[in-house]
């Protein structure tokens, strides 16, 4: 039986579905090296023409925000309504701005 530490590293896969759109996270997979990760990503995540470009990144290289600090991170943006155009009333005469 294998032991967990011989496992190939986990990679996160991002696919650009068509030119003009940004890459989007589609899932993950295991691969021993970057070339294999790209190759596996192609076979696993773009079998049905889902992509025109692939990024792979080792899962361990991703730095993420801390979920328990979600409130601290994101709630302060709630009351900054002046960042949105709908905050500003315009005279009816002005149709587009």
């Amino acid at each position, binding site marked *: 039986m294998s032991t967990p530490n011989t*496992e*190939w590293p986990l990679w996160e896969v991002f696919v650009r579905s068509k030119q003009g759109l940004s890459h989007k996270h589609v899932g993950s*997979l295991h691969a021993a*090296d970057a070339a294999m990760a790209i190759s596996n990503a192609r076979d696993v995540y773009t079998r049905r023409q889902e992509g025109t470009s692939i990024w792979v990144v080792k899962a361990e290289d991703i730095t993420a925000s801390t979920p328990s600090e979600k409130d601290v991170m994101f709630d302060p943006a709630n009351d900054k309504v002046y960042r949105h155009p709908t905050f500003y009333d315009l005279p009816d005469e002005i149709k587009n701005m």
Partner: protein
Amino acid sequence: MTQEMDLNQRFEQYIAADQKIEAKDWMPDAYRKTLIRQISQHAHSEIIGMQPEGNWITRAPSLKRKSILLAKVQDEAGHGLYLYSAAETLGISRDEMLDALHTGKAKYSSIFNYPTLTWADMGAVGWLVDGAAIMNQVPLCKCSYGPYARAMVRVCKEESFHQRQGFQIMLTLSQGTAEQKELAQDAFNRWWWPSLMMFGPNDATSKHSEQSMRWKIKRFSNDELRQRFVDMTVPQAELLGLTVPDADLKWNEVTGHYDFGPIDWGEFEQVVAGNGPCNRERIDTRVTAHENGAWVREAATAYAAKSSKRASSQNSAA
């Protein structure tokens, strides 16, 4: 302790409000364990499920059917992979899950312990087994755990051709020679009851159901889904000119559903306990593939280590 209670309360509120839980969010241990159990079982079912159909790839009766079947079994490998990945977000490694499968600690869907004896089984498996699976899986696209729900969206999208190709095989056989019709009926006879068992024990005896419903990991009960499957499949069997192997089956005007005969849960329990016709072969095949691949996986790891070492020594030289 109060903090734990706060977190728990918040989690329950979240679920009640139909919010998704993501990988790094706080979750009760039992929720995590339930998910790991369910998702890994689901992944194992996909992987073991490759074998009964893989059994006919080399013997498919036309090159078109061979392509379709190969693509379908390949999809199952893909689905296993998406699901293992979803489970890995909960802090278990794929190797740990595979070990559990290989040592018999983890379960997988019992249906795959039945043999595929004729080509008609490719039809019956696609039509009935995938049909039942889809019925189970579609609600999971809305389950409360984000990574599982997303994996299921992908799985369901890809599965949609699986059932159709199975039905098409049955249709071709049922319109074919007398021998082919017999093959189709025989396969139907063998797969009908095991397909009904796929929905799991009756609601009254299902041990994990209630909590999972509350956590929105499960969204419909076993019996509800089973009834839906019967109602959907019986007219399809009629269209194929096949006889449902159940003397008690009849339309119930009052309920608006088909009544069907009692399921042999004794058989189900035997197969779950490891005494089905193919339990041993399925696991042996899996373990052999894994063991035969060990030197390959090690080589790739060793090569990756060597080349990154070479790359870094080149960088430092430059």
